[in-house]
């Protein structure tokens, strides 16, 4: 190994002993101390690890030292941290998260509230967007509007979700308190005219704006959260739902009369969960255990629900109103975006003693949308009202003394910041898939697609 150490490095440079480790079992190397020159940067270390792994194609690696990405040479890091080069340094190497570069953006005629990338069952991925003009659109990756809903919603659509069944369909909900189920058949000819989609079922229970929808494929159930403090449990199997008759407004507005809405079957919920005392901002179903749901609310709490009994299992109260949540199942973490401009990481398990494990800081406004990375279980993306999408690595957290409201003493910074190409405007929704990349929508009426690709970016990243 001594030979490896000295690979094309001038022997005059001071050296330091490092212990390389990784959490990725496929990339592990036998534990052995290495002496490397301190003027090595990320690229040098990455070359070293690739050399050790003897990979046919070089994999870009990033290196975490004490919860921080190594962005300078080891020497500079030691100087900054005030460490001695005599002590061995523990270095964790991870697959490099590629910086998402701007791919393109597609404009719509109103603010876009939500975006969903079609499930992997689709032959070609499409984007489902819910718009403030009360419609949902399906856009191909080339920017063509494939399909559009008929004006069923009298007000803005706030949330959408795909329903993966035999026939692909999707759900929309928004300010008009109704959830509509639309079935969508991908047209054989994508370049044909915009398809008009008709609703099949309306789900009516909520008294106020519906803020989020989440669908569980294994149980065919979906959850909706609303600003009326409730969470409703529904099923796409409409036969199991009670049929209701919605009350009509005594005085129809001109707008309502003008937009002749199609009649649909109206269904009531399976159950209504009311553990929250403030508008519920988002509800998600656990990705692996589909009987568990998590919800966050303005009342600062994260509540774990058991969908079988429709009961709240546990409540974790944070210090700030929460706007969004996503689960990172492999590391047993819940990430919640808060009104206090940060993302808090929580361990939802009963065994966890602490309310939150770490705080990710960087946003300058409320974090309203969170999505986990399709490639790494440690990475997540967040969309915020400050007009940026940020990518975070939950491993990259370190204890810092400046932390005063995190409580648990660990905080981290973002890996990348993606700004809106249009300049300003709030980001309302993000979604991330391997094929499409990172999609974000917002106040600028645009769907923005970013994707990390290619090895060429690695060198670029070094310079940043």
């Amino acid at each position, binding site marked *: 190994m001594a030979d490896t150490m000295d690979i094309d490095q001038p022997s005059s440079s001071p050296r330091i002993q490092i212990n390389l480790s990784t959490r990725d079992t496929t990339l592990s190397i036998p534990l052995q101390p290495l002496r490397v020159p301190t003027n090595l940067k990320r690229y040098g270390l990455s070359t070293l690890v690739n050399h050790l792994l003897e990979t046919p194609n070089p994999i870009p690696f990033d290196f975490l030292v004490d919860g921080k990405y190594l962005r300078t040479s080891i020497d500079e890091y030691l100087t900054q941290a005030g460490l001695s080069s005599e002590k061995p340094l523990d270095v964790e190497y991870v697959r490099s998260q590629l910086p998402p570069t701007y791919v393109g953006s597609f404009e719509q005629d109103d603010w876009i509230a939500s975006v969903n990338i079609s499930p992997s069952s689709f032959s070609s991925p499409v984007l489902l967007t819910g718009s403030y003009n009360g419609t949902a659109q399906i856009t191909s990756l080339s920017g063509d509007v494939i399909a559009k809903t008929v004006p069923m919603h009298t007000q803005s659509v706030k949330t959408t979700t795909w329903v993966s069944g035999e026939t692909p369909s999707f759900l929309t909900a928004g300010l008009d308190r109704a959830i509509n189920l639309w079935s969508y058949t991908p047209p054989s000819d994508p370049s044909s005219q915009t398809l008009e989609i008709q609703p099949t079922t309306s789900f009516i229970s909520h008294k106020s704006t519906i803020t989020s929808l989440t669908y569980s494929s294994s149980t065919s159930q979906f959850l909706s959260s609303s600003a009326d403090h409730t969470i409703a449990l529904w099923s796409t199997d409409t036969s199991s739902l009670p049929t209701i008759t919605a009350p009509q407004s005594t005085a129809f507005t001109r707008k309502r009369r003008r937009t002749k809405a199609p009649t649909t079957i109206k269904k009531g919920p399976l159950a209504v969960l009311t553990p929250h005392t403030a508008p519920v901002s988002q509800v998600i179903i656990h990705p692996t255990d589909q009987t568990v749901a998590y919800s966050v609310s303005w009342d600062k709490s994260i509540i774990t629900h058991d969908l079988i009994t429709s009961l709240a299992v546990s409540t974790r109260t944070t210090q700030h109103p929460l706007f969004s949540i996503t689960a990172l199942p492999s590391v047993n973490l819940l990430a919640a975006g808060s009104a206090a401009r940060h993302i808090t990481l929580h361990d939802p398990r009963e065994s966890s003693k602490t309310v939150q494990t770490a705080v990710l800081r960087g946003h300058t*406004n409320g974090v309203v949308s969170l999505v986990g990375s399709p490639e790494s279980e440690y990475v997540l993306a967040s969309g915020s009202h400050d007009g940026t999408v940020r990518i975070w690595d939950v491993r990259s957290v370190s204890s810092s003394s400046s932390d005063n409201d995190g409580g648990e003493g660990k905080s981290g910074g973002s890996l990348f910041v993606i700004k809106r190409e249009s300049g300003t405007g709030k980001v309302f929704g993000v979604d991330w898939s391997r094929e499409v990349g990172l999609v974000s929508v917002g106040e600028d009426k645009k769907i923005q697609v970013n994707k990390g690709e290619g090895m060429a970016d690695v060198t670029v990243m070094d310079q940043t």
Partner: protein
Amino acid sequence: MTAKATTRKRSRAEAEAEKPVLSSEDEFEIPEINGDEDSSDDSDFTAGDEDSDEEEEFSSGAEDEEDEEEIDSDEIPSEDEASPKENGAVNDDTSDDEEVEPADNVKVVTGADGNPRYIYPEIEPVYDSDDTDAEETNTIGNIPLEYYESYPHIGYDINGKRIMRPAAGKALDTLLDSIELPKGWTGLVDKNSGAALNLTEEELEIVKKLQRSEITDESFDPYPDMVEWFSSKVEQMPLSSAPEPKRRFVPSKHEQKRIMKIVKGIREGRILPHKPQAEASQEPEFYDIWADDAPPKPDHVMNIPAPKLPPPTHDESYNPPPEYLPNEKEKKEWEEQDPEDREKNYLPRTHKALRLVPGFNGFIGERFERCLDLYLAPRVRRNKLNIDPASLLPKLPSPDDLKPFPTTCATVYRGHEGRVRSVSADPTGVWVATGGDDGTIRVWEILTGRQVWKLKVSSDEAVDSVTWRPTPEGRILAAACGNEILLVVPPIFDIEEENQGKEILSAGYGYAANRQGKKEAPGTWSKPDAALEEDGVVVTITVRKTVKYIAWHRRGDYLVTVSPEDVRRAVCVHRVSTHLSQTPFKEKSVTKGIPQRVQFHPSKPLLFVATKRYIKIYDLAKAELSKTLKPGARWISSIDIHPQGDNLIVGSYDKRLLWHDLDLSTKPYRTLRYHDKGIRAVSFHRGGFPLFCSSSDDGTVQVFHGRIYSDLMENALIVPLKVLKGHKITAHLGVLDVDWHPKQPWLFSAGADGTARLWN
């Protein structure tokens, strides 16, 4: 005898009549008077006048006319000195100067020696010149006159001749006399002359004057002509006491000489004018008390300096070396010597220490203390007051410990054209309503800033106030536009809720129908036109003047409005359930001053009316004024009541934010003066956070922590937390309204720049 008496009386009367006009001609009478027995009295009274005349005569030359009675010049001692001179002069000038010659009065007789002899007229025997009249006085002495009653005389004069009793009239005369009493009758008899002692005219005059308590001196004029010293008349030669002008000054030669001497001295440099005397007169800053007492005196004959004393030698020490100490023999020898013969007047003695010298305690010790006094040596070390000034400041908690509170702008609500006048968050905390100068009411989604509903109320008038009904049921928004109050149910809610709200508002139409024909109410409730009704407006209330502010009662049945322009009906209370408007204050005097804001107490039946300077609290149950607060502000712009109801904040256009503790005093408990311009709106958080804020024309919103303790003895804790900057100042207007989110520590502000903002 009788005849003689009457003649005498008459002559005396004549003399008395002529006295006041006494002149030089009257001297003819004088001899007669002199001879008369009464003359002493008369002459006494006339002495003053004649005396002065006489004096002048003498001074003018003594050649006056006088009667020719001979008198010996020797007898006039006063004239002795003047006469020889006069004589000489007369002698010299006799030939040529006729006027000097005393032709009439002076008799020239040839003396025994043949020389002419001047005989001067007899001098008037005035009081101080002669006492020849003493001869006429009675010499009997001080005995009663009764002794002479049987005699014809009453006494003897100085020559021994009898002074005859004046003739006493017969009984009839006496009777007549007693009947017609003569003027000045006293009934007394003169002791000297035996005649009736009557008062003269002058005496009577004096008596009268005495009776009138006037000054008896005739020469005194009690009523002199007034001299108008200060009058409107401009005198040609004004009377002035101004000092003589310098131009009339005649320089003294002696002084001239002395001045010239000084000038010469200055020129020669002997005398230095403007000599800097400051150094000489300046007192030294420090006195060298140990220096030689007297400064060395100049060498002079009279100055013999004291001889310098030789320094003390060893044997004068209190502990001299042993060789200086005298032995027994020397001691004895010294003692036997005559004190005058002794070489030195002491014997060296030894003491172990200075303090053992006899008399040390009383003498040296005291000297030492005195020296310390002179030296001002402090005996006690005084500890300097050592207090950290920062410790005297009140201990305020750090704002970091008082989180959460709004710090940054989260959302900007854009859409209004013109100023946003009013902002209000709905009770569920999902929507926020704004009203602006463009005559629209807009409802926004709180987080995203999306406008979800808009109602154009008026094209020319601004929406001055929007307020949500504070109850959870029935989403009703009250908006003031011009002189109309609109009660709106925005069609953004659930249909059930919307219908509930419409029912609440429409229920009062029945009451209104029954009330037709009664006296004119201050507000007219009416159905809006179809277009507005479709947009969700259920009721409009029309009052007389522009409504500037609306406040709901906590139960949502009453709302109170302010129209400051309406003098008589500025404050109006409207009841939703019966569609009835009332003016709680019938007379103008009840709410003196223009009402600015009104507010219901959050729990008690109290109405707070803020006029320009005072806040009046009316008890609605008793219909009386219960308290008047005097914030001391010049123009109150807004008030808000703490949700617990015991505290009040007042914003004023003179930049002050005042915290009132209603239990404490009518004066503000705390004045916060942090804004640069007038405060437009103040607001308490009502959802459990101890926060309040003020918005100002300086474009900022200031957030404060205001904690109230349940312990009544503890005062409220007020901590300034944050200045929220973001609104632009447009036409000198900044942030016009603020409202808190009902549950979160979020703040809404309405700016004159056409935006409303959310701060969290």
